[in-house]
């Protein structure tokens, strides 16, 4: 079966859970910006949680299904219809053969995920189906989807559709400061810099994308402008360029860099970074590394608990 893209939306790409093992060649992981919603979408339709699926940013796509299919939409809220019928969010549902799934504006977040039972048929590039648009590789022809693109769906045996417990995802959308650990250059910054970082509200800049989320607000600067030898950068690192406006390095990040890193978003909160929209306000709050790992562990546990057994 195939899906034809009638309109591609604002920025729609094929993603999976990322491309690992190539950072030493300058290749960032890419992958779903909100991996939690991505995994939930795949689990709902019965797929392996890393099966290739669509990430739609700010404005969704319209897709024509040539055969009936089972799909699920997760992530930010998005008005979607199949023909004239409203379709549910965060639940698997049927699309009849020949129907058009129309996804509208994404609200209450930045990205919406569409998983189709079986998963999209995408050749792996360096072990992953994720699109890295800046490098023109991975995903569907190394680029965002365009009108007229035709994507295949993998043949599959019987897969068990799953459902979420009532109100299972409420905690996800509650506004909350991003939790961060101190960064590798924490000793470059005075306590006052951390004070500013942890007490002010930052605004997400329009210049943000999958490579980096730029924050506007209180200026933070290292004690002195020394040169840092270019070194590897962790996912979610918060680097401070000379203008003092922090940047959260995100899934399509550069793999190395020379700006000091004051903090790092915890792994359990990366999905929240993926849902930040331009002009959103965001605060930062410190946790220890041990707490951060525990939060990730709890999140993994939560992910198994939210489904009806």
């Amino acid at each position, binding site marked *: 079966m195939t899906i034809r893209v009638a309109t591609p939306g604002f920025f729609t790409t094929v993603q999976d859970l990322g491309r690992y093992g190539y950072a030493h060649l300058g290749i960032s992981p890419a992958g779903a910006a909100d991996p939690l919603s991505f995994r939930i979408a795949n689990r709902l339709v019965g797929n392996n949680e890393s099966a290739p699926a669509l990430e739609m940013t700010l404005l969704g796509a319209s897709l024509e299904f040539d055969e009936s299919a089972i799909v699920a939409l997760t992530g930010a809220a998005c008005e979607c219809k199949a023909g004239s019928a409203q379709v549910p969010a965060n639940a698997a549902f049927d699309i009849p053969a020949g129907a058009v799934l129309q996804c509208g504006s994404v609200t209450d977040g930045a990205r919406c995920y569409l998983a189709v039972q079986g998963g999209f048929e995408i050749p792996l590039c360096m072990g992953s189906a994720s699109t890295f648009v800046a490098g023109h590789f991975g995903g569907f022809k190394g680029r965002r989807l365009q009108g007229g693109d035709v994507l295949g769906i993998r043949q599959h045996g019987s897969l068990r559709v799953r459902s979420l417990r009532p109100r299972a995802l409420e905690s996800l959308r509650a506004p909350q400061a991003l939790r961060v650990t101190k960064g590798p250059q924490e000793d470059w910054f005075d306590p006052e810099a951390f004070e500013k970082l942890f007490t002010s509200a930052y605004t997400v800049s329009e210049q943000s994308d999958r490579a980096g989320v730029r924050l506007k607000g209180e200026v933070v600067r290292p004690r002195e402008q020394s040169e840092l030898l*270019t070194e590897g950068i962790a996912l979610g690192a918060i680097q401070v360029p000379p203008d003092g406006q922090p940047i959260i390095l995100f899934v399509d990040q550069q793999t190395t860099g020379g700006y000091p890193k004051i903090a790092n978003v915890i792994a359990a909160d990366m999905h929240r970074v993926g849902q930040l929209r331009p002009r959103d306000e965001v605060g930062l709050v410190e946790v220890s590394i041990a707490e951060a790992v525990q939060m990730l562990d709890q999140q993994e546990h939560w992910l198994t608990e939210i489904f009806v057994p």
Partner: protein
Amino acid sequence: MKIIPASDSSLLIVFGDVISPALHQRVMALFYALQDWHDSRIRNLHPGYASLLIDFDPLRLTHDELSLVVQQLALASGDDADTPAKAVVIPVCYDAKFGPDLFDVAQHAGLSPEEVVQLHSSPTYLVYFLGFSPGFVYLGGLPEALHMPRLATPRPAIVGGSVGIAGSQTGIYPVDSPGGWRLIGRTPVRMFEPEATPPTRLQPGDRMKFSPIDRATFEEMKRGAEARLR
């Protein structure tokens, strides 16, 4: 050697704070040792000039466990590890069409363009690491006479394969991109091929030399590379 938790999922191993082949050898020894370790809990290795960032799955490996492994491997491998590093020759056409800044670099250095080409293509460069973008190499060994600040205003579009100079660095733009390096030539070799194994022509730790070629050879090699792609 300092071991710093850079995030809840990574450790940064810092060997020093200067650019030196000796420190780099220690980075690479640990890099190779960790690659040979083949541990699926380790997801990515990011070598830098004098450091190595290790990205791992914190639910299956703790910072303390990894820290111990790193200390043991660093002891065992020392700094004279057998390396899979290669010696690679990258052909470059220093024609004015490909090197619009060659004349400025020559003037800045007080040399003739021919002398710049000679000087640029004589050293054996060390590939310290790849980073910033896919296939982008950080090379050490540019003769001091050729050091020159980057352009005040970056060019909006640079053709992949362009060879340039920025400060004390020389390098090759792997794919079409904007950039502020002074362009002195271009290689017909594709530095980054996502479908190839390995996907990049150079690996961290490799040694490389630029070898001057004329326009006719450039065009011929370029046609060869494109035919291979089809």
